[in-house]
């Protein structure tokens, strides 16, 4: 597609439920990132995938959070047993390692999924 697509754009859930957030990166981009944006907290790195390498999961806040990337393209971020503190905007970004200039150093962001846990 033309840009990074995230779905749903908004998600309201009850405390204790599981949620899945989806990210469709720009076609051909090998790197995919998940961030969490909370009010006043900036962007918090969660996880990134780079090609076929093992993902860097160092930013995941607890074992309730997991992510996978199937076929090197679409990624799903799963939050199990959601808590109210999980309420935030979850952003996905992708970047490529091909193209003119230093394209691999530019992240393209999706519009985000706003998660509200009641």
């Amino acid at each position, binding site marked *: 597609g033309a840009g*990074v697509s995230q779905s749903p754009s908004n998600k309201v859930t009850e405390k204790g439920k599981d949620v899945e957030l989806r990210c469709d990166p720009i076609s051909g981009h090998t*790197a995919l*990132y998940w*961030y969490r944006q909370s009010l*006043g*907290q*900036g*962007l*918090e*790195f969660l996880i*990134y995938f*780079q090609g076929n390498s093992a993902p*860097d999961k*160092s930013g995941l806040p607890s074992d309730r959070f997991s992510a996978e990337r199937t076929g090197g393209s679409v990624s799903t971020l799963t939050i199990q047993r959601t808590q109210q503190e999980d309420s935030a905007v979850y*952003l996905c*970004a992708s*970047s490529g390692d091909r193209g003119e200039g*230093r394209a691999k*150093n*530019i*992240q393209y*962001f*999706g*519009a*985000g999924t706003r998660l509200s846990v009641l």
Partner: protein
Amino acid sequence: AQSVTQLDSQVPVFEEAPVELRCNYSSSVSVYLFWYVQYPNQGLQLLLKYLSGSTLVKGINGFEAEFNKSQTSFHLRKPSVHISDTAEYFCAVRRTSGTYKYIFGTGTRLKVLA
């Protein structure tokens, strides 16, 4: 490990006045530096980046930033702001090798007043 500090959480400035948004970073290895902008209700987009070469980099919408290695700073400047520049600005770093992980600052909300 790397860290990014944006000391100013909010910066109000009058239209047509100059502005500087401060960014300091900490890293024991060489890094690339970035500024991203997030307009209200929109996603983040790249404003400018420093990879190598000239320490003064120019970005979109008349913004520029200067990489100062000795002061570990990458402050963002614009000589004359417009109402449309009202947005949140994020500074970020990434190691030049070994990892593709980005570290972002907490952001500076620029509010341009008429």
